[in-house]
């Protein structure tokens, strides 16, 4: 198997170009992508234009469409903002911290036979520049900024791209399919119609 030389990306642009090259092939080497993303040292002035915050909930800001092979986006988390428990629609998901910290809680897929809620499998705090990975065979997760004083910014890569996913109610295991929307794309604010909460958090 060919390995791309693991040269540390010097900038966000450099990282994006490297990712384009890696994703030219149809097979994804998870460790390689995780390693490249982790080795990019976050420099706020390079991603500030994508980091648009909302007062009431976390935002998803599209950075690059990866020639259709992946979506690269930046998520902005205010104090206390958290996601629902969700899946990743059969795609790879890479999550890198650009600023602050995020708590990731892992869950198994709910078992219809077992009444009662979903219990967490494990929990960890992701620190600045760390890169985590998940896919549906590993399980489901919830991501939260538990800080009451600091915001958090994370870089996400999803391959292949997906527009809907399932969110899970922890108490019952019940799930909903939700459409995923972008707060901004390529640095421009892109409002969407629905304002009603789609997340079960």
């Amino acid at each position: 198997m060919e390995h791309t030389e693991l040269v540390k990306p010097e900038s966000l642009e450099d990282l994006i170009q490297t990712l384009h090259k890696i994703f030219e092939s149809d097979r994804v080497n998870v460790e390689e992508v995780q390693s490249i993303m982790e080795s990019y040292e976050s420099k706020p002035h390079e991603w500030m234009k994508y980091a648009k915050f909302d007062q009431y909930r976390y935002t998803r800001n599209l950075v690059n469409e990866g020639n259709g092979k992946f979506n690269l986006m930046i998520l902005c988390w205010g104090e206390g903002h958290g996601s629902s428990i969700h899946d990743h629609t059969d795609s790879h998901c890479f999550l890198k911290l650009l600023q602050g910290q995020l708590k990731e809680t892992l869950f198994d897929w709910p078992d219809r036979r077992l009444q009662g809620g979903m219990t967490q499998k494990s929990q960890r705090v992701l620190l600045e520049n760390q890169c985590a990975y998940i896919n549906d065979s590993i399980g489901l997760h919830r991501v939260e900024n538990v800080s009451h004083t600091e915001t958090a910014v994370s870089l996400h890569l999803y391959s292949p791209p997906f527009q809907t996913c399932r969110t899970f109610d922890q108490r019952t295991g019940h799930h909903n399919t939700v459409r995923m929307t972008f707060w901004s794309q390529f640095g421009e604010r892109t409002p969407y119609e629905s304002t009603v909460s789609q997340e079960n958090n």
Partner: protein
Amino acid sequence: MAHFPSMDDKCAVLHLSRLQLDDLILDHLTDSKRQQIQQLHLTFNRLLLLPPSVCFLSNLEYLDISNNALTVMPEDIMRLTNLKTFVAKNNLLDESSFPKEFERMQVETLNLSGNRFGEIPVQFLKMTTLQSLSLGGNRLKTIPAEIEKLTSLELLYLGGNLISFIPPEVANLTSLRYLVLCDNRIQSIPPQLNKLHSLLSLSLHNNLLTFLPREILSLVHLQELSLRGNPLVVRFIKDMTYDPPSLTELAGRTIKSQNLPFSSCDLPSNLNHYLNLASKCPNPKCAGVYFDSCVRHIKFVDFCGKYRLPLMHYLCSPQCSSPCSSNPQSDAESEEENSVPADRLQRVLLG
């Protein structure tokens, strides 16, 4: 250690963060330069005190001194009459740190998260210009009823404290759009919170809630509601230990629901007072009232992106069951109540 910032002619923003400063001397600046400064960032330094120089920046509108080691704010801070935003997160401030006169400041945004406040300082409760108040990650045990005086408040962040009770007076903050009470010890939400007509986001995750008041359904503008990490009930076990109403209550109920005419001189004052305490039964098909004797009734309703939230209200009697609510998505709860197995009922009776 003094620091001489260089300033160009138009500079209104001074960035002096992460410079290991333990003091700041701006004596060398001319008056006009001093008056030019509108924003000052002094975060992540080693300040034990607010440098006196800062208090002479008479046009300062924005001051961020987060992540230092401040224990007290000097009285001279009152000189900053144009200060609109004051941020001092992650310091060592508490309720005795601020001068008494601080209430006269016209500050609109006050962020003191990550300090050591055991209570909200009295001065803050008189600052009617406040639009945004953040005291997250402190040691607050209560929310004082006087919070209702902050009538301009749009954001109230009290997450990460030791709060166990929400006073109904919070509901008088009718401009409130964002209320954060996550990571506390709250066991119930007052039904009056439905008066917060402007509320767009309510953060209640990681508390001790077992149900929510049915009145929450009237918060029609609510876009975000976080409830993770609460022991919300999944099943409702009917309360079997219902105390039947007293004779006084039965008489009171008859008078009110039959609209029996009486004047205040017909009755002793204590009974007049009692009759005024009647609560209307929320069941729209029931014209009844109750005084002290009522039953809790829980209905499971989909609301605000959540699946089957347990919503509670009181009914005047166990026989008074509620018909379908205004929410067309709600399940009929009678299935839940009738399907409670006998052995479960026995366990509740025996406590």
